[in-house]
């Protein structure tokens, strides 16, 4: 938290958690998909489901999926803009277990057919947590460049990833490891202080035993982020 979390952010109302946070979840999910969204299934949960309508939560999530940030004054018109861009939007109710009260599950299909499932939580004060990616725990804030690697639970993958980061002089801010079962699917979530070169991210995805690599970059928005931060 810094003083521009107190005086700021500049945002479209009415609620930092139900509007601004919701835009941010959509925005981060859109970046994780790494291509324009062709179809989005938006499944709301808890308070998002109960009071989302009055807070413009649906509009906010769609705006984020279109690449808008929380201060974009086109947020109220996002459904119309989605239609214009041929983005198909479906709303529903999420069946989540023990989720944060302000949660949404996004089932996304990109224009090239790439698929991604994201569960996002709005924590208040426009802070968010990306809780799950493709059903596996993730837990990151979208405040740092973040690398998410889904791999087989076998020795050596953590070393491969961290040595690549070290080679590219990328410092790790935080690192989490999860696995579904021993020898099954595992996930690494690494928040970094620097951006990871695109070619290194793509190199990782071709490694034996690595199922999927997803990367959240702060780039393209650096100027705007400095104003808002």
């Amino acid at each position: 938290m810094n003083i521009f979390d107190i005086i700021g952010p500049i945002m479209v109302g009415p609620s930092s958690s139900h509007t601004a946070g919701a835009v941010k979840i959509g925005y981060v999910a859109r970046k994780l998909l790494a291509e324009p969204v062709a179809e989005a299934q938006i499944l709301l949960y808890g308070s998002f489901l109960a009071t989302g309508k009055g807070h413009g939560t649906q509009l906010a999530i769609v705006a984020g999926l279109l690449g808008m940030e929380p201060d974009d004054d086109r947020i109220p018109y996002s459904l119309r803009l989605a239609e214009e861009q041929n983005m198909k939007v479906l709303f529903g109710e999420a069946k989540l277990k023990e989720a944060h009260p302000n949660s949404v599950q996004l089932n996304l299909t990109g224009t090239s057919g790439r698929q991604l499932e994201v569960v996002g939580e709005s924590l208040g004060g426009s802070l968010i947590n990306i809780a799950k990616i493709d059903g596996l725990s993730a837990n990151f804030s979208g405040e740092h460049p973040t690398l998410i690697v889904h791999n087989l639970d076998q020795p050596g993958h953590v070393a491969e990833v961290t040595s690549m980061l070290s080679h590219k002089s990328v410092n790790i801010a935080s690192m989490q490891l999860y696995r579904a079962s021993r020898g099954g699917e595992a996930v690494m979530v690494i928040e970094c202080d620097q951006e990871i070169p695109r070619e290194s991210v793509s190199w990782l995805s071709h490694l034996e035993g690595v199922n999927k690599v997803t990367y959240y970059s702060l780039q393209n928005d650096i100027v705007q982020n400095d104003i808002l931060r």
Partner: protein
Amino acid sequence: MSFASLREIISESQKRECLFWEVILQEDCKERNVSREASFETMRRMYQAMKEADASYDASLRSASAIAGGDGLRLEQLRKSKDTLLGTFLAEAVEKAVKMGESNACMRRIVAAPTAGSCGVIPAVLLTYEKQRGAKEARMVEALFVAAGIGEVLATSASISGAGGGCQAEIGSASAMAAGAVAYLEGGSEEEIANAAALALKNMLGLTCDPVAGLVEVPCIKRNASGAVNAVLAAHLTMAGVRSAIDPDEVIDSMQRIGKLIPACLRETGQEGLAATPSAKRIAEGLSSE
């Protein structure tokens, strides 16, 4: 977050031989690793955004519940038509506070200060001050740093969320921040800035968060007006030499303790208080039947 008490900011300003606002700016430079100019410019952008939000108020808009909107224009018309009971300064501050609250409810762009629900208090007071007292913009930006410093202490040592501490933590915090900013603009010392914040906050202690249908509309919008008037009142008392009998940091501690004692049904859950009235239920039903 560096400052957990107003006392710390005051003693830092004495140590560094600089003003309250400069201490906050210096800490921001350190915290975010940015230059003095960059920090000041970011705050100026916040002030500009407040100005733009005020200027682009649209009285024809209605909120999700369809009950909020248009009151800002009523207040503007009254202010322009006659010498009102509130006097020129407060009448305009109240009008701007309501306009900003309505803009927020109608999905317009605002500056959370410290929250979206309380976004009207600080710009209402500062924009009116700049206009009516002919203050320079740079000085208004300095006043925003003062407000931010007070807000930082409130967020660290108490709460600035309705769910965490009730409305006292939102409108109360905004009012305390605005009061300190106005005291600074009026030539108040570091001690007087803290005193104004304390006097404003004391008037808001215990205020619960019981919004109708869980929306940031009723009673939030009009409470922004109340927070703005209260801020000017606190600065006025301070500049007359009136002192808070309770130490400013102890007032903040009280808000934290009171916030914890407010039951969850009165902390942004939309279950009790105004939210539980027949009128509120009618509004909520109208919303869900659409």
